[in-house]
């Protein structure tokens, strides 16, 4: 594992820097966007009240003092209170976390469980009519924005056939449509990617050699083609996370799902800045750690990467 350090070290440093940049930018953008005292007390507030408010929240201090205080607070998990709910913003966001995860994790599973088999099947039956129609369908699935897809699902499965509820999060049936909406686009992307990755791997020389040695086609697929195609698919999953997060925001709003995405839109509408900040930071943390994990995984799975890096020392 020690040999991984020079490989992962710069990436770790970069990830930490990224988070600091996000925190710093949100702080200064927040301050640049207007006087919090005026925003909270309203434009009709009297001057002494404003002064008292500023003193109470430390807004009369120099900007860098405010920044350091904010950083110190953030380190201790204190991101300020939601103006709307009057509760700590972090608490408000974390409360909704399980519901959002209950949407995203099954969608992720759907990506993989549908995308990979469909792509692999299409690759093995390359240029058949099944391959072609599946690939055409995937174009449709990943180009259609999730909010349109969700509404179309509601129109078909809820309004027309009455199979699933169109909103809420109370029974298992309510999970079906949101998860399906969120998972479809990613599954289509993975299916297309798996197909091309498999085709490339299949056409490589050592696969040809392996099949020439008298191993069965099935063995070639499972022992050679699959392991080689899996690394790029993992990377793709990491890259898709951002789209998945954005998709979750829209899908939650389509289905009235009381998760973080819905909270974000409500908070943006009401300019509840503390909550928006926490969500932004949460997303940044999730994304950076996901990228870092992918990098680490990549380094472990593919030792050539590490060695190439060290060879250049």
């Amino acid at each position, binding site marked *: 594992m020690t040999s991984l350090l020079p490989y992962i070290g710069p990436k770790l440093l970069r990830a930490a820097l990224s988070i600091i940049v996000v925190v710093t930018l949100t702080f200064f953008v927040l301050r640049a966007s207007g006087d919090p005292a005026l925003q909270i007390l309203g434009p009709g507030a009297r001057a002494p009240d404003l002064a008292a408010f500023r003193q109470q929240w430390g807004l009369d201090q120099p900007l860098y003092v405010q920044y350091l205080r904010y950083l110190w607070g953030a380190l201790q998990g204190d991101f300020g209170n939601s103006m709307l709910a009057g509760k700590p913003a972090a608490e408000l966001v974390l409360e909704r976390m399980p519901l959002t995860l209950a949407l995203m994790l099954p969608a992720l599973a759907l990506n993989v469980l549908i995308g990979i088999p469909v792509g692999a099947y299409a690759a093995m039956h390359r240029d058949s009519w099944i391959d072609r129609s599946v690939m055409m369908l995937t174009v449709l699935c990943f180009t259609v924005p999730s909010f349109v897809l969700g509404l179309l699902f509601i129109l078909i499965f809820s309004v027309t056939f009455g199979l699933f509820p169109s909103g809420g999060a109370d029974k298992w049936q309510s999970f079906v449509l949101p998860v399906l909406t969120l998972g479809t686009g990613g599954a289509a992307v993975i299916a297309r990617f798996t197909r091309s990755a498999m085709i490339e791997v299949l056409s490589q020389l050592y696969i040809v050699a392996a099949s020439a040695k008298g191993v069965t086609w099935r063995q070639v697929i499972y022992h050679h083609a699959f392991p080689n195609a899996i690394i790029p698919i993992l990377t793709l999953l990491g890259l898709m996370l951002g789209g998945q997060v*954005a998709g979750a925001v829209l899908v939650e709003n389509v289905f009235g799902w009381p998760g973080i995405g819905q909270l974000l839109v409500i908070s943006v509408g009401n300019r509840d800045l503390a909550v928006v900040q926490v969500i932004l930071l949460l997303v940044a943390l999730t994304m950076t750690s996901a990228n870092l994990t992918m990098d680490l995984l990549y380094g472990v799975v593919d030792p050539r990467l590490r060695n190439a890096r060290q060879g250049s020392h």
Partner: protein
Amino acid sequence: MQKKLQIDLSTLLASLWLCLMLLTAVTAPLIAPHDITAMDLRHRLSPPFGFGGTVVHLFGSDDLGRDVASRLYYSIRTSLLIAFGATVISVLVGTAIGFIAAYFKGIVEHFLLLLIDVQASLPFLIVALAMLAFFGNSLPLFVALMGLYGWERNARLARGLALAAGSQGYAGATRQLGAHPLRIYLRHILPNSAATLLVAATVTFPEIILVESGLSFLGLGVQPPMTSLGVMVGTGREYITRAPWMLLAPSIVIVLTAVAVSVLGDYLRDKLDPTLT
């Protein structure tokens, strides 16, 4: 050298559809039969022509009796205009930052690369939402915000192009003639990069349409009385049971446009710039 230009059926259909959209956007005021805010209270929630509706409201009318067809034409106009303006901003900002990063080595370059990394690691929709929360919403601000979409990709591309032009090629040759860096970047590197940047813009443009309609759908983008495809989907969703055409008309336009752009984009990338992924 000259290969026969081969266009398959799907590419042809995609181009035709996009031309139709462009035409609609340009001629919206001429072809729209009604004002987009004109209410026809006798024909509220009237279905499209052929589904029990009248020719007066070709695609039906909405909850206030406003003509869906007219609103659709104007929505296409608004969405395309915003996407166009934003794409121009995105390419300009991205190119400028990319060139600056390529020109200034050292700390400036590292900082810009870090910013690019940060932006690339955050979903744009989230960033856009946060900015809307911080700064409020107005049309110019919204277009500017949409213009931030994809800047990091364009910046990376522009930096790569500038570095490739690099010290060994024509850029270095012009530099040693004694040219000012501005001249090298504006007169030499920019024209030589234009084709690639243009292809990148064709990728950015449709994506901005989708982000814009998503934000407008959430009620945080284009504000009434203006209308855009996302606004129409957002309104239509309330009447999904009683007047599905309010939802379907803009949705079909979004879906077809997205698919058409994707088909055409693949074609363009294959033909113009195979290095762009």
